[in-house]
């Protein structure tokens, strides 16, 4: 579905995407993770054939995005990072008008709009204007709009940012159903749980480069340990403990408010800690998550 080699995007002097390779197979759910400014959206816009690559090779659905832009876009569904719904039209018309951009006949457009509003549970808002909708409803409408041409490949740039937990679960469930129908999904996200839930495979981007690639499980196994111990100390800055705790676990990461201790066996690490006479004010042993992988790879926590 997507094939990229050495893909580059420059804005003037600045290189936003710095030579990335991608392969996305039909039916796959593929994710981009990365801190702010990593180049996720820039990559998505190149895949969506709205931004011209500055270098490298890119093929979408086997076609060249520069030459066959309209033909490719006809088969894509795009939900951009910032909503661009039409504020002069109400919810239902937003879908039908957009369908007309794809040359879908009016009657068919109305049928699909009805179905899609049902799908994202906005049926009772059909005649509401866009502006009074909540952020989550707008997002769901954007997602519905991306489906209006029954695309083969759906691009979602941060589909659930700003949504409440219920709305997020709804969106996940809907995206999961799309995947079951065989639609290829490509999404960016800042939420590790989202990536774990939805993506078969993902890449972590940082500074325009891909720093890791694989399934969520694979990434955790490769880059993190099985368990993580979160330690808080009441008195001093966590960084001051890094030296003192050396030798316990496989890796130590001081955050401003806590210290992360990576270890295959969290409980053993905690006993060792106590044996050495440390008394953290709080101790939490948990399984390692993608968030930890992210932290290890980019040296940063996730920021929204």
């Amino acid at each position, binding site marked *: 579905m997507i094939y990229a080699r050495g893909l580059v995007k420059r*804005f003037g002097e600045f290189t936003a995407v710095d030579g990335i390779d991608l392969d996305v197979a039909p039916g796959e759910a593929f994710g981009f993770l990365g801190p702010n400014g990593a180049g996720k959206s820039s990559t998505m*816009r190149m895949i*969506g054939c*709205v*931004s*011209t690559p500055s270098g490298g090779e890119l093929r979408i659905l086997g076609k060249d995005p520069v030459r066959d832009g*309209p*033909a490719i*876009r*006809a088969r*894509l569904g*795009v939900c*951009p990072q*910032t909503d*661009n*719904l*039409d*504020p*002069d039209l109400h919810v239902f018309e937003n879908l039908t*008008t*957009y369908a*007309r*951009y*794809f*040359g879908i006949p009016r009657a068919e457009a109305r049928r699909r709009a009805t179905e899609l509003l049902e799908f994202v549970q906005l049926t009772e808002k059909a005649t509401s204007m866009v502006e009074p909708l909540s952020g989550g409803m707008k997002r769901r409408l954007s997602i519905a709009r991306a489906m209006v*041409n029954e695309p083969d490949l759906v691009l979602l740039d941060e589909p659930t940012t700003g949504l409440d937990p219920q709305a997020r679960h709804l969106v996940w469930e809907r995206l999961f159903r799309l995947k079951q129908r065989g639609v290829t999904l490509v999404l960016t996200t800042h939420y590790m749980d989202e990536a774990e839930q939805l993506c078969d495979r993902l890449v972590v981007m940082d500074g325009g480069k891909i720093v890791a690639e694989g399934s969520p499980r694979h990434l955790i196994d490769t880059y993190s340990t099985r368990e993580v111990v979160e330690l808080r100390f009441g008195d001093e800055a966590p960084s001051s403990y890094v030296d003192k705790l050396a030798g316990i676990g496989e890796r130590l990461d001081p955050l401003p408010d806590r210290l992360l201790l990576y270890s295959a066996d969290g409980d053993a690490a905690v006993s060792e800690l106590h044996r050495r006479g440390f008394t953290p004010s709080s101790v939490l042993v948990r399984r390692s998550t993608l968030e930890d992988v992210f932290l290890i790879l980019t040296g940063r926590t996730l920021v929204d």
Partner: protein
Amino acid sequence: MVLYRRLWQASVFSSFVLPVLFVVSIGIGVGGYVGEIDGWDYLSYIVPGILASGAFQTALSESTFPVLGAFKWTRSYHAARATPVRIIDMVLGWQLYIQFRVAAASIVFLLVSAVFGAVHSPWVVLTPLICGLLALSTAASVSAFSATIENDSYFSLLFRFVMIPATLFSGVFFPVEQLPAVVRPLAYASPLWHGVELSRSAMLGGATPWPWAVHVGYLILLSALGLWWAWRAYSKRLRD
């Protein structure tokens, strides 16, 4: 491809009701004092000009804020960009919408003018076309301009230094020959002047100051250049 079905009622109201009120008040009120120009009563003289300047102003106002807004605020062009719609379709779609607006306004305006006895020639049937051409020649390049800017404060400059002088000095209210010779070329450069003279000739039956083909040709040239510029500007804006 019909891209835009928008809020009609409000805008249609202002785009012809205001000029109509204008004609009624100026034509009847001031007309008594000014007497005749080129052998016509003042009302008949200015009606074709007001008609053309109405088209000109609709063209300007519809190709400024709405265009910038569709790039910057609502991002509707970006939405359309993600579909098979081509950039040239977006440019033409919006121009088509402006044409509809102008055509509807011109026709209503002509009917009202006829009632007031300001129509004197069968060529009047051509005036909606003239207005359409005038609107295209103006709106195409102004849309292009709107696509290149980031900030709407340029519009107040455009209105102040282009729209208002053009409206006042393009032969709408008095013949351009009364302007000092140094500024006359500015009027000749203004699409509005060509539109006004064509429209006046069509409504009153007289000859145009220059051969009509020159007036029409100039407007077509401006339209073509404007569309090309708009296509370039839209492409550039939407490229990244």
